[in-house]
């Protein structure tokens, strides 16, 4: 039962209110870069979502994606993860670390056309009465025998509203050409 273009209109397309899920900014890399930053984030939404497809310059097939809030670089974050590597499921935790770990993505030893996807949610980012929880679902499906799926959560140690988000690979690496990071605001 093929649904060609126009079927939705004929069925009486539902339309949403004005931009409940709204694109704020996209960065699509035409050259390698050591980090990307979403700055001056409007404080008019309830939650934020980052959607990205990423590859790094790592010499391995998979590589990490890290995140910091409001440019805080001190060891005030905590992380948890639930990870499946194709063989087993593991869970780890880390406290007093200098970043939030969003998951693993493709490194430069991955298949040449492979990138790793991630969806990162930041809940109640404008609140000044609670710490910020960052939740991510990501994965590296980068070689036929090297793949990983990650559920991760992170938290910071301050109640400040979030106005800046920085994403970066491990030290010394860059995000590769073709990587894309998009920030969305969700109204609530």
């Amino acid at each position, binding site marked *: 039962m093929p649904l060609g273009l126009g079927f939705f209109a004929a069925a009486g397309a539902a339309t949403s209110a004005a931009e409940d899920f709204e694109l704020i900014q996209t960065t699509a890399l035409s050259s390698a870069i050591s980090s990307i930053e979403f700055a001056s984030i409007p404080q008019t939404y309830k939650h934020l979502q980052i959607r990205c497809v990423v590859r790094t310059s790592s010499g391995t097939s998979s590589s990490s994606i890290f995140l910091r809030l409001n440019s805080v670089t001190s060891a005030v974050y905590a992380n948890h993860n639930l990870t499946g590597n194709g063989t087993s499921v593991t869970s780890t935790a880390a406290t007093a670390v200098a970043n939030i770990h969003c998951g693993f993505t493709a490194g430069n030893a991955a298949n040449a056309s492979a990138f790793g996807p991630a969806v990162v949610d930041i809940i109640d980012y404008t609140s000044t009465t609670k710490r910020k929880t960052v939740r991510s679902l990501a994965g590296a499906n980068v070689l036929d025998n090297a793949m990983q*799926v990650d559920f991760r959560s992170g938290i910071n140690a301050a109640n400040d509203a979030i106005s800046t988000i920085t994403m970066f690979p491990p030290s010394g690496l860059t995000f590769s050409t073709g990587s894309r990071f998009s920030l969305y605001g969700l109204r609530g």
Partner: protein
Amino acid sequence: MSYTAIYSQTVGTATATVEFTSIPDTYRDLVLVCSPIQSTGSQTVNIRFNSDANTNYREVIMFGDGTTTTSQLAAARSSVLGQATANASTDRINLAFQIFDYAQTDKHKSVIVRSSSVSSGSLVNASVNRWANTAAITSITCTGFGNYAVGSTFALYGILA
């Protein structure tokens, strides 16, 4: 609209295949949300892109069944598997396929699948998949086991970037 409903269908006559064709290339990501109902036997949603039925899909999955956690990988599948299975007509399963950079021709296509079922053999699943093809996705074909029953729903959304 940054998040737009493109196509939506509620199955009115039992059918083995639901297909979305002529997908516009104006978005950056696609989200396919499915709630299939069993017609006969078990039911799930597996998807193929551009009618590619070759073993060009790679998968790593993690799931829990209420007792045990498991992770598996598949280096050569002929579709992206939805994994959650409805084993009875009263079972309800939900699947969401997130397809990234679907119209870009500089990379293979990445898909994150979240699915869950409440039935005999209930599972909560997450998988990351790669369609090893740089072609833009213009069609998505959904198949399962046997027919999708009346009332099964499929909705395709586009996300701008």
